């Protein structure tokens, strides 16, 4: 319900408007742009990173259920030899020629780097690897935990589980 006030507002005010409402704006917004506090100085798009990264794990399948498998010590040479045989079996000589860089081997995990255009073939070859027989009679398999173009994202993804369980 309107009450009389000092101002006489423009006639486009609805009858239900109350005094505490702000008066309708009269300035033209197209002529006045509000400055924001953040300014974009420059943008850059990284469209073709040269390398892709993969987080692999080596697991052991025992021959029978009850057999206890000792923890295997993984080093870079072993990882390289498993990857080479996986690539050679799936992709032949051109697969074995894919340049794989081993970045880190820790426990049962390995981080490797391949050229970006070879990531799909590499992932397929590692997944299709039938495994090699290990010393204690089981089968050693390779497993891709994650792969992608950005190493930081892979590392963060790997440690996600640790936030809640430890």
């Amino acid at each position, binding site marked *: 319900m309107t009450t009389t006030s000092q101002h006489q507002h423009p006639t486009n005010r609805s009858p239900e408007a109350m005094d505490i409402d702000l008066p309708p704006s009269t300035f033209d917004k197209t002529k006045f742009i509000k400055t924001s506090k953040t300014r974009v100085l420059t943008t850059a798009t990284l469209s073709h990173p040269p390398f892709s990264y993969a987080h692999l794990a080596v697991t052991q399948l025992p021959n029978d259920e009850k057999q206890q498998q000792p923890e295997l010590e993984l080093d870079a040479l072993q990882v390289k030899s498993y990857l080479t045989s996986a690539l*050679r079996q*799936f*992709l032949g000589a051109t*697969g074995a020629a894919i340049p794989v860089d081993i970045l880190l081997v820790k426990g049962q995990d390995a981080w490797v780097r391949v050229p970006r255009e070879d990531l799909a073939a590499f992932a397929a070859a590692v997944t299709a690897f039938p495994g090699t027989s290990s010393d204690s009679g089981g089968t050693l398999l390779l497993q891709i935990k994650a792969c992608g173009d950005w190493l930081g994202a892979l590392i963060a993804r790997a440690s996600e589980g640790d936030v809640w369980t430890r």
Partner: protein
Amino acid sequence: MVRLKDRYLLVNIIYTDVLPGQSRASVPDVLLYNQPTTGELRPQMLVKAIRGEVAALFGDCGSGAVDRSLQVKYLSPATSTFILRVSRAHYRLVWAALSFMNQVPVKNGRPCIFRVVRVSGTMRKIEEEAVRRAKLLILAAKDEMASKNGSSSSSADALGALLRSDSLASRTLAVRSGQDDSGLVCGYEDKDTSGDG
């Protein structure tokens, strides 16, 4: 209806273990390079050799892509020419495997080169090309014999047309001077037309 599209490769077998200008002066060099092949070579041996090479170069993935559709459509030991059919998506794997093969796939095979001279989507164009190349070979041999016997003929048009990969020039047999053998590298590719496949 979905069309299964293939590529047809026309391949020559070139023999390398002959030195030009040897004592066999009566035979022109171009015929020495394009000798007939031994009669032991059968289509199955050729397919087996190509499959083995694709498996060695490209592994399980490559041989799975190529094996189903690989077939020798025509083999002529007399002219050392054969025609392969491959699926359209993966014919380059077979071409690469042919580049790596260095001997005739028979027992104690001679060292040789497998040269792909034409890729086409239709069998008809491949056959026409094979016939055309046979004619050019005869012309080139005649030119060479004529120049050996001393009569001055024009520079080897037919030989250049045989070796060249540029289609227009080879079709019209244009006279060029100082041809280089850059045509030895690859054949000429035809896209398949909407006609027969």
